[in-house]
């Protein structure tokens, strides 16, 4: 019995290995994004995120070249105390540190030729000295990147430090709540994305529910034909309609307005929404409707009292789809809103193209944009999967 168990375990081992390997490949890139987003700016851009818990560069080199005389914590020599921020601060660059090697101290050369560190080692040693002297004490983790991303900070240190020193850029006031509204920041973009997404999710669901009811339980000429056309419309690429709609919007003054984007998303969400809702509403039991009508219910009563409450699961699936689709959209926002009312994806794309802020800012910004979709995804995964299985998917 026990032998059998062990044999089974060994036989299923390859299965486990393959699954775990694939899962690792799938999760590690996202993990890297998250870890980088909470690392200080210097670390994030110079060392790999997987080194986050390992010793920082410089310590080993310090032990190798300097610890013998200066001591492990740098304060062994009274006339050359490396734990003194003033002394370390006088070496702005590692080349200045190298210049001291040829000087004579107490009759012998500071550091003779073969035992000298190379340039990279020297730079690492200097950053180690800056740490032990307290000149630059930065924690392993920080939330500064998120603050910087939210307020649209583009400097070289951080919003918090710049504001403490009073050296912030002109577009920042250092009042956090005010700066959240900065048009370059992710805070403002988050708000814009919410303003775009919520109506664009609700409108197509409402219109689709009406149309789906008609397709499912009302008789009219050309019903099948019209529905088949709808199936075709689901596939039409969005790109197909951008130019005429841009021109139309330019005439109507709708370019760069939320209303324009709401309407566009509604138009493109409808074919799939109607298709999904119609399949669901059409599968409700026929007797339900027959008895309702026998009791004298009108279409409106049946729709309002029967169909809507019963289609909550379908509405949930559809809502999540439409929500994620619009939240994650770049193309429509790029064309119809642009920099006028920047949304999250637009801002991140801007950061990618310029790479001005460095990786710590980009990763924090990306994570901000992923937070709500991930929450929706984990909260409503059941409905999401159900929606996927209910038909083809729109893209």
């Amino acid at each position, binding site marked *: 019995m026990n032998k059998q168990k062990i044999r089974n375990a060994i036989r299923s081992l390859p299965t486990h290995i393959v*699954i775990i390997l694939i899962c690792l490949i*799938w999760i590690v890139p996202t993990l890297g994004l998250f870890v980088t987003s909470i690392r200080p700016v210097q670390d994030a851009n110079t060392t790999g995120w*997987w080194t986050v818990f390992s010793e920082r560069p410089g310590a080993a080199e310090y032990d190798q070249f300097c610890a013998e005389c200066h001591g492990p914590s740098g304060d062994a020599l009274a006339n050359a105390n490396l734990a003194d921020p003033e002394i370390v601060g006088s070496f702005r660059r590692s080349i200045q540190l190298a210049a001291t090697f040829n000087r004579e101290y107490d009759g012998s050369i500071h550091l003779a030729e073969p035992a000298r560190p190379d340039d990279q080692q020297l730079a690492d040693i200097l950053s180690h000295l800056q740490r032990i002297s307290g000149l630059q004490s930065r924690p392993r983790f920080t939330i500064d990147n998120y603050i910087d991303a939210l307020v649209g900070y583009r400097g070289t240190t951080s919003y918090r430090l710049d504001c403490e020193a009073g050296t912030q850029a002109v577009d920042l006031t250092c009042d956090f709540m005010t700066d959240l509204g900065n048009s370059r920041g992710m805070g403002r973009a988050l708000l814009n994305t919410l303003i775009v997404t919520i109506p664009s999710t609700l409108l197509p669901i409402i219109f689709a529910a009406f149309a789906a009811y008609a397709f499912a*339980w*009302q008789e009219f000429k050309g019903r099948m034909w019209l529905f088949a056309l709808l199936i075709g419309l*689901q596939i039409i690429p969005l790109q197909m309609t951008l*130019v005429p709609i841009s021109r139309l919007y330019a005439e109507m003054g709708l370019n760069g307005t939320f209303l324009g984007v709401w309407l566009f998303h509604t138009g493109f969400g409808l074919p799939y929404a109607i298709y999904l809702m119609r399949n669901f509403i059409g599968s409700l039991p026929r007797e339900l409707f027959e008895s309702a009508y026998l009791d004298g219910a009108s279409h409106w009563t049946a729709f309002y009292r029967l169909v809507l409450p019963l289609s909550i699961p379908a509405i949930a699936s559809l809502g999540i789809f439409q929500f994620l689709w619009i939240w994650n959209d770049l193309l429509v926002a790029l064309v119809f809103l642009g920099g006028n009312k920047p949304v999250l994806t637009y801002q991140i794309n801007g950061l990618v193209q310029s790479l001005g802020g460095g990786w710590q800012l980009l990763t924090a910004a990306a994570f901000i944009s992923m937070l709500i979709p991930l929450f929706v995804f984990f909260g409503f995964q059941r409905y999401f999967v159900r929606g996927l299985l209910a038909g*083809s998917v729109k893209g």
Partner: protein
Amino acid sequence: MSVPKIMDQGKWTPWMYLSPALIIMFIFIVFPMGNTMYLSLRNRDSSGWASSVCVEGQTCWGVFENYRYALTSELDTSSPGATWRSFWFSSFGNNLKWIAFMVSGAIVVGLIVAVLTDRVRYESAAKSIIFLPMAISFVGAGVIWKFVYNFNAGGAQIGLLNAILARFGFDPVAFLQTIPINTYAIIAVGVWMWAGFCMTILSAALKGVPTDIIEAARVDGASEWTIFWRVMIPMIRQTLTVVATTMVIIVLKLFDLVFVMTGGNFRTDVIANRMYAEMYINQHSGRGTAVAVVLILLTIPFIILNVKRFREEEALR
């Protein structure tokens, strides 16, 4: 499916329910489609027909001049070899690569995960992980993978993939700038994003395969491998087709990923991306719409397929 007679409440009622949706879809999908086709025959700002830019002595397709541009401008026709090479790295060639490798890649990974997780206790956890990228935007995924592919000329590699290469003693690679691997590097991101979709649908189909058929095959001494190829795959063939066609459509429309990761540079351009560039960067509405029309022509077979499948399903109801 017919409707109970008793529910017939007038000729106009259905249209009251339908009209809001129909009107919006007409304005935003049907009308622009026609308009796009018209614009694709016009010149840069639609002030005249496309043939107005024709120059004596040069090849010109008359009113279809924009299509000549859309289809042949990326080609180098100096020799057959050059034509083929330039085609293979044009937006059309790249889209072919996308279709071939992203669709098959996502389906293969999805299928492997669907089959294997069926046998382990942590099935739902593993599936959630594979499915997770579906919730992430193309832009977000672009950032995640740009970081994985990051290349540092000299100095420490902070991109995971190059750090691994360095650890094993290989030279770092500029994944997103090096032709031809850059397109495949972006395709891999597409697979990463869409394998979860394939997995979910295929897994549901696999669970629908009756267990007694599989048991019977096992009793007859068939190996797991044989069962997979001879029993499971044929039983889910229909679903596989649906997944594959859906994926092809998704790939054809794919824009954001290339736009974010390389901006279509280094010969990674795809059709959807080119349409954007012609229209909003080069400001040429004729050429932009011509590319869009080419895109829709490519999707027509799938539209027909979808409608046909719907008809068959309806007939079964």
